C-alpha cells in the first residue's frame, strides 16, 4: 500500500467536495490545525466546524495519521479508495454537533497488512435531514456499524439493506446519543 | 414341566430384573455424577447420605413428585407412550441375559436375536418422543437419532454374525460356554482362533456406544446444540423414564459385550486355581461394571462428533472392517472347523 497515493486520492476527492461548496472552496485546508486546536482556550464550547479537506495530524496525540473531511455524498468514494488500498473499516459512529445543527458521521479506517496507518473520514450532514449513503456495499462489515449509528443518532443510511434497530429495542422511538435526548 | 412353578419362577425373575434395572439406572447416575466429579477434580454429590449415596433416591422422589407437563399442541398419545416405550424393551431384554449358569430367566435358543430385536424398539421410542414434542430441537434430534441408529445397526449385526459363526450358536449361554477356560479362550483375544478378535471387540463396543446414544455419539441429546434433544419437552417421570432407559440400555450393552467377548461369568484365570479361578456371577458383574466405567470415562473425555463424521465412521470405517472381519472369520471357521 502506498500511503502517499492514498492521501493524494483523498485530497483530490476532498477538493471535489470543496468545489461544490463555493464558500469553503476558496480556502485551502492544508495547515495542521491539530496544533491550533490544542492551543485553543479550554472552554465548554465545541470547536468550530472544520472545512473539508485532508489533514495529516500528529499520530502521537490524536491516534490517527490522516484526517479527512468530505461531503456526505462522497463517503462511498472515500470507502472505495481506502478499500482499494487494502484498508479495513474499523468503526462507524456519529457525533452530534447540536450548536452547529449538524451531525458528523465518522469512519475509522486502519491498515492491517503491515505498518500502522489510520485514516479517519468524517462527513457533516444536516441535523434536520440526516441522510448519508451507505458504505455497506463496499465494506459489508459497515452494515452493523451503520445500523448502530442509526440506533443512536437516527442517521438514515441510504441504500442500506436492512436499516432496523440493532442494539435498541425494535419498537423504540428515540435516538439516545442526540444531545437533545432527555431520557425516556 | 410344572406350569405353576414355572409361572412362579417367571414372576420372581421379572420382579428381580425390574428391580435390578431400576437400581442400576439409579446408581449408575450416581456413578456417573461421582465419576465425572472426580475426573474433573470435584467431589460430586456428598450431602444426601454418606458419599451422596442417597442422592438417586432424592432425585427419584423429586422427579416423581413433579408435574408431568404436556405442552399444548403435542401429539398426546405418542408423547405419553414414548417414555414408556424406552423402558419396556430394556426390561424385556434383561429376561434373556444370563448372568451366570444359573441366574437367567429364560434360556432362549435365539437369545441374541431377541436382544437385537428389542434394542431396535428404543430408536422408535426416541423418534416418537422427538416427533410428538412439537419442538424443532426435538424433531432435529429425532431425525439424528434415527439415521445414527440405522447406520450403526449394520456393523453391529455383522459383528454379531461373526460371533455366531465362531461359536456356532445364537444361544447366549452356549456362546459363553464356548469361552470357558481362562482369558485365552475369550472371543476378545486372537488366541481363541479368530485373529481379528480385538478389532471385532472394538467395533462392537463403538457400535454399542452409538446405539445407546452415549457420548461421543450423543447427537440426539447434544445439550450444547439441541438443548436436550428429544426429551426437551419432557418433565417429571417422562424425563425420568428416558433417563432410566438410557442407563438400562448401557447396562444391557455392557452385559452383552461381556457375554460375547469377555467370557461371561468365567474367570480370566484357569479353573485349576481355587476361588479366583471359579466361575461365578461376581466375575460377570466385575466385567460388566468395568465396561460401564469405560463408557463413563469416555463420556467425560471426548467432545461430541458431528452427524457427518458419525456416519462416515460407520460407513467408511466400521462397515468395511466388519465385513472383512466376517469374511476372514468365515474362512477361518471353514478351514479350522
Amino acid at each position: 500500500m502506498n500511503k502517499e497515493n492514498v492521501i493524494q486520492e483523498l485530497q483530490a476527492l476532498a477538493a471535489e467536495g470543496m468545489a461544490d461548496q463555493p464558500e469553503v472552496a476558496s480556502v485551502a485546508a492544508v495547515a495542521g490545525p491539530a496544533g491550533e486546536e490544542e492551543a485553543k482556550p479550554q472552554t465548554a464550547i465545541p470547536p468550530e466546524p472544520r472545512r473539508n479537506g485532508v489533514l495529516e495530524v500528529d499520530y502521537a496525540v490524536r491516534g490517527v495519521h490522516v484526517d479527512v473531511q468530505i461531503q456526505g455524498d462522497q463517503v462511498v468514494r472515500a470507502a472505495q479508495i481506502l478499500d482499494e488500498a487494502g484498508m479495513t473499516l474499523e468503526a462507524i459512529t456519529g457525533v452530534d454537533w447540536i450548536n452547529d445543527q449538524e451531525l458528523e458521521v465518522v469512519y475509522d479506517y486502519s491498515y492491517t497488512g503491515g505498518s500502522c496507518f489510520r485514516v479517519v473520514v468524517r462527513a457533516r450532514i444536516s441535523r434536520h435531514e440526516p441522510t448519508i449513503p451507505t458504505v455497506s456495499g463496499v465494506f459489508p462489515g459497515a452494515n452493523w456499524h451503520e445500523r448502530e449509528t442509526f440506533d443512536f443518532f437516527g442517521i438514515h443510511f441510504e441504500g442500506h439493506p436492512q436499516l432496523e434497530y440493532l442494539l435498541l429495542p425494535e419498537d423504540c422511538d428515540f435516538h439516545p446519543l442526540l444531545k437533545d435526548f432527555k431520557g425516556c | 414341566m410344572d406350569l405353576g412353578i414355572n409361572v412362579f419362577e417367571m414372576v420372581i425373575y421379572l420382579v428381580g430384573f425390574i428391580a435390578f434395572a431400576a437400581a442400576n439406572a439409579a446408581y449408575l447416575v450416581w456413578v456417573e455424577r461421582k465419576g465425572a466429579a472426580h475426573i474433573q477434580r470435584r467431589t460430586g454429590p456428598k450431602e444426601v447420605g454418606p458419599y451422596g449415596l442417597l442422592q438417586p433416591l432424592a432425585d427419584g422422589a423429586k422427579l416423581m413428585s413433579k408435574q408431568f407437563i404436556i405442552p399444548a399442541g403435542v401429539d398426546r398419545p405418542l408423547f405419553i407412550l414414548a417414555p414408556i416405550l424406552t423402558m419396556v424393551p430394556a426390561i424385556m431384554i434383561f429376561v434373556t441375559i444370563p448372568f451366570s449358569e444359573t441366574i437367567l430367566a429364560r434360556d432362549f435358543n435365539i437369545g441374541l436375536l431377541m436382544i437385537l430385536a428389542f434394542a431396535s424398539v428404543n430408536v422408535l421410542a426416541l423418534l416418537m418422543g422427538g416427533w410428538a414434542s412439537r419442538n424443532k430441537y426435538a424433531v432435529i434430534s429425532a431425525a439424528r437419532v434415527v439415521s445414527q441408529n440405522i447406520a450403526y445397526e449394520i456393523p453391529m449385526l455383522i459383528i454379531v454374525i461373526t460371533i455366531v459363526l465362531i461359536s456356532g450358536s445364537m444361544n447366549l449361554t452356549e456362546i459363553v460356554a464356548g469361552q470357558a477356560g481362562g482369558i485365552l479362550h475369550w472371543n476378545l483375544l486372537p488366541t481363541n482362533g479368530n485373529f481379528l478378535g480385538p478389532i471385532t471387540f472394538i467395533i462392537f463396543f463403538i457400535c454399542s456406544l452409538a446405539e445407546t446414544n452415549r457420548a461421543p455419539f450423543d447427537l440426539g441429546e447434544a445439550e450444547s446444540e439441541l438443548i436436550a434433544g428429544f426429551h426437551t419437552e419432557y418433565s417429571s417421570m417422562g424425563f425420568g423414564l428416558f433417563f432410566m432407559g438410557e442407563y438400562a440400555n448401557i447396562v444391557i450393552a455392557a452385559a452383552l459385550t461381556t457375554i460375547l467377548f469377555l467370557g461371561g461369568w468365567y474367570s480370566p484365570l484357569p479353573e485349576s486355581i481355587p476361588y479366583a479361578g471359579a466361575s461365578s456371577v461376581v466375575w460377570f458383574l466385575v466385567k460388566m461394571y468395568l465396561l460401564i466405567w469405560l463408557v463413563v470415562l469416555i463420556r467425560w473425555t471426548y467432545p461430541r462428533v458431528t452427524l457427518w463424521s458419525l456416519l462416515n465412521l460407520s460407513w467408511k470405517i466400521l462397515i468395511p472392517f466388519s465385513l472383512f472381519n466376517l469374511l476372514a472369520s468365515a474362512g477361518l471357521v471353514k478351514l479350522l472347523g
Partner: protein
Amino acid sequence: MSSQPLSQNQERFELNLGPQHPATHGVLRVKLLMDGEYIVDAEPVLGYIHRMHELMGENRSWAQYLPNMGRLDYLSALSYNLGYVELVEKMAGIEVPERAEYIRVITTEMNRISSHLLWFGAFVLDLGGFTPLLYAFDDREQILDLLEAVTGSRLTYCYYLFGGCYNDVEDDFLSGCLAFVKRLRTRLPMYHNLVTKNVILRQRLEGVGPVSAEMCRKYGATGPVLRGSGINYDLRKNEPYSIYPELDFDVPVYPEGDSMARFMVRMDEMEQCLRIIEQAIAKIPEGPVMAEKVPKMIKPAAGDYYHAVEAARGTFAIRAVSDGANQAYRMKLRSPTFSNLSLFQEASRGMLLADGLAFMGSLDLVIPEIDR
C-alpha cells in the same frame, strides 16, 4: 465439509437460537433459517444486554467512567482498563512511571490468559467435551486469586488510574505469577494431549468455518480471528503501546482460516503471554506506581482522540471527542467481537448446525461487549 446443502425447494424452517441457549454464552439470539440440519441463513439479533455505555461516557467525568471499562468485556477487563487510561493519559499528557507500566502489562497479560482459558473451556464445552472446562477453571482460578490480591476484585477490575495503578504490587504477587507461569507450562501440554490432538476435535474443527483474510478485512475482524486467517496483525507489535516494544514475544499466525486455526492461535497466544509475563517480571524496576502530578480535573484540549489496544478478542478502540470539559463530548467504544460476529451471517451459510455453533464458539463472543 464436503457435503452440500439440500436443494432449494426442500421445506425450510426457522429456528430461534437463543437468547437463552447453552451455546450462545449469554443473551445472544440468532435467527436461523434451516434446511434440515443445514443453516441457510443466520441472522444474529443483538441488544439483549445493551446498557448504553457510550451515553454514560458523556454524562460522567473522565475518572468516573473508569469502572465502566470493567463491564464491557468482563473476561479481559484489564485490557479495556488499559485502553481507556492510555487514551486519557494521551489526551491530558500524563506521564506514567515505569513501574506502573510494567505492572499494567503483567496484570493485563495475566488477564488475557484467564480470558483465553475460559474461552478454551467454554469452546470445548460447545463441542460437547465437558471436562476441559473444569481443568481450565482450575488454572483460571489461580490467576483470579493472584489478581484479587492486587486489584481487590476477581472479574470486573477497576485497577488502573490515570497516571498509574491503584496500588503497588508485592513481591508475593510477582513470585506467584512466576509460579503460575511454571504451572501453566506443565498444564498446556496436558491440554494439547487431551484436546488439541484428539481426533474427534480435529475432525470437528479442521476446515470448518473458513474465514478468508479478505473477508476479515471487509468485515473489520481483528484479533485471533484475523491471525487465524494468516494476517500477522497484533496491535502490541503493529501499533506498540505501553512497554510492549521492550519485550520479546511472537505473534502466532495460522494461515488456514478455519476454526482449528483460531483455536491454535489462542492456545499459542497463552504461551506468548507467559513469555511476556516472565520478561516483565525480570525487568520490573523499583519506583512509584503513580505519576507525581495528576490533575484532579482532567480537561483535555478540544478535538478528537483515538486509541486502540489489543484486547483478548481483538482491537478495542476508543474514539473520544472532547470539548475541553471534564467529561467527554462523545465516547465511541469500538469492540472487537461486534465486528467479528458481523461476519457470522455470511460465513455460516451452508454449514451444519453443529458446525455453525462450533464456528460461533471459535469467534469467542462476549455478549456484553457486543451490546455495550
